[in-house]
């Protein structure tokens, strides 16, 4: 497959956190410990040689247990983290929904936050003005759009954040477990919105603990465990393997 038809390509990507055994918060302590030679790190591989290729317009689901590296992988794709090893190629404009309300200033009104968030996504004020009415309509905030965001409920923040990220027509949409906070009606609306922007050619990467939403939205699934790819293939096959591996654990736990 030629590189130009790929939206995202990760080659042997590793993310290694160098965690000091104890936190050294100040220069003074660092200097003392360094002189004594007692700065000890242990290394934690959040991702180890992960290779993933996502064609343009495809939809990829990422599953795995807590701490498997799903969010780290999303952060690498979103360019939030530069990997400590390997190469990342991302073709196109990325809208990351890694946490709802990330990039919101809670003291500002919803209206001001639409423009602030647009600016964070690299969009001009004029462009956001053009999209504003649609965003407010999708978020169903009505008159609350002029109230400070700190007065919003979790669901309202979720709706506004999702409305902005999906309205800016990103080439790549990253969604990390954010759909689970809203009510069923909102989840249905989000799913529809995602399907509609995917029809226009947006590439989707979705992290979720819910096999249903993964199966509904993704053709392909990568299963991560302890920073490594366990399986990579058609959604149904990988999800089934993951569920059957997790089920005995869940049964034993209960």
């Amino acid at each position, binding site marked *: 497959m030629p590189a130009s038809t790929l939206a995202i390509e990760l080659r042997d990507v590793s993310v290694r956190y160098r965690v000091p055994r104890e936190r050294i918060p*100040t*220069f003074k302590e*660092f200097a003392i410990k360094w002189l004594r030679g007692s700065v000890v790190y242990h290394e934690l591989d959040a991702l180890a040689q992960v290779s993933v290729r996502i064609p343009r317009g495809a939809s990829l689901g990422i599953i795995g247990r807590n701490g498997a590296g799903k969010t780290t992988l999303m952060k690498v794709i979103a*360019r939030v983290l*530069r990997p400590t090893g390997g190469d990342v190629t991302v073709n196109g404009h990325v809208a990351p929904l890694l946490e709802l309300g990330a*990039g919101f200033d809670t003291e500002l009104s919803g209206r001001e936050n639409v*423009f*602030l968030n647009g600016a964070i996504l690299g*969009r*001009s004020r004029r462009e956001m003005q053009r999209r504003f009415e649609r965003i407010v309509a999708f978020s169903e905030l009505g008159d609350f759009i002029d109230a400070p965001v700190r007065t919003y409920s979790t669901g309202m923040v979720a709706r506004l954040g999702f409305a902005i990220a999906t309205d800016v027509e990103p080439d790549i949409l990253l969604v990390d477990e954010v759909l689970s906070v809203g009510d069923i009606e909102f989840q249905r609306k989000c799913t529809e919105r995602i399907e509609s922007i995917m029809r226009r050619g947006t590439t989707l990467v979705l992290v979720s603990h819910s096999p249903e939403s993964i199966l509904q939205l993704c053709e392909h699934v990568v299963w991560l465990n302890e920073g490594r790819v366990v399986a990579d293939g058609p959604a149904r096959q990988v999800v089934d393997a993951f569920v059957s591996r997790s089920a005995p654990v869940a049964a034993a736990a209960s």
Partner: protein
Amino acid sequence: MLDSLREVMRYRSLLRDLVARDLKVRYKRSALGILWTMLNPLLLMVIFTIVFAHILRVTVEHFTVYFLSAFVLWNFFAQATSWSTGCLLGYAPLIKKIYVPKSIFVIATVLAGTVNLIISLVPLVIIMLCVGHPFSLAMAFLPVPILLATLFSLGLSLALAPLCVMFADTVQIYGVILTAWMYLTPIIYPLSALPDHYRRLILLNPMTHLVEAFRTPIYQGALPSSHVMITATVAAIGTLVIGWAIFDRYSDRIAYLV
């Protein structure tokens, strides 16, 4: 450096929002807020005038104007650089979740300081009117030293910001350095009052030249000498290039550390 400069340009609407937000927070959206930034130099000026003009009897004509024309520029430099030391931590929640060129936070903080500097020219003009200090056409030259001081402050801020993320006490250490630095800059005393060997030392301080470039049009009503301008320009641009390179080198680590 050119690549990251171009990237910052792509995010200029974010830059404008951040500067506006920074100023709003500092002025708490109130008229009295702006008044406070004007009162601060005025109050300091009263104290310094009493101490130096009346108690220590420094014999400089129109000492208040002499002092304040240097002090507002110093105050800008000190505030912009020390605000910048904390700005990356302040934006940590954003830096961890969404990619933006991180230098933009430092640039926004310094530019907010520049706006503040321009506002603080108002009390300076008021004081000049009060003491009857003459205004000169040379003051039209002020945008140049303001620009140079902004570039210099930005360069230093870009170098300091990643260091502050790695070690929290950089902020305190820098505070001590700033205090010493202020007394090593001819703000409350004229350069000519120093013995030769000290003067040579003080001339190595880039802020000496930046302060001189800003003060001369106001206090002496003349353009700064070309020697002062060349030194100030080289110091400002050199610091910016080095600071930018340091920031670029460490900016990938910031998201891991904040």
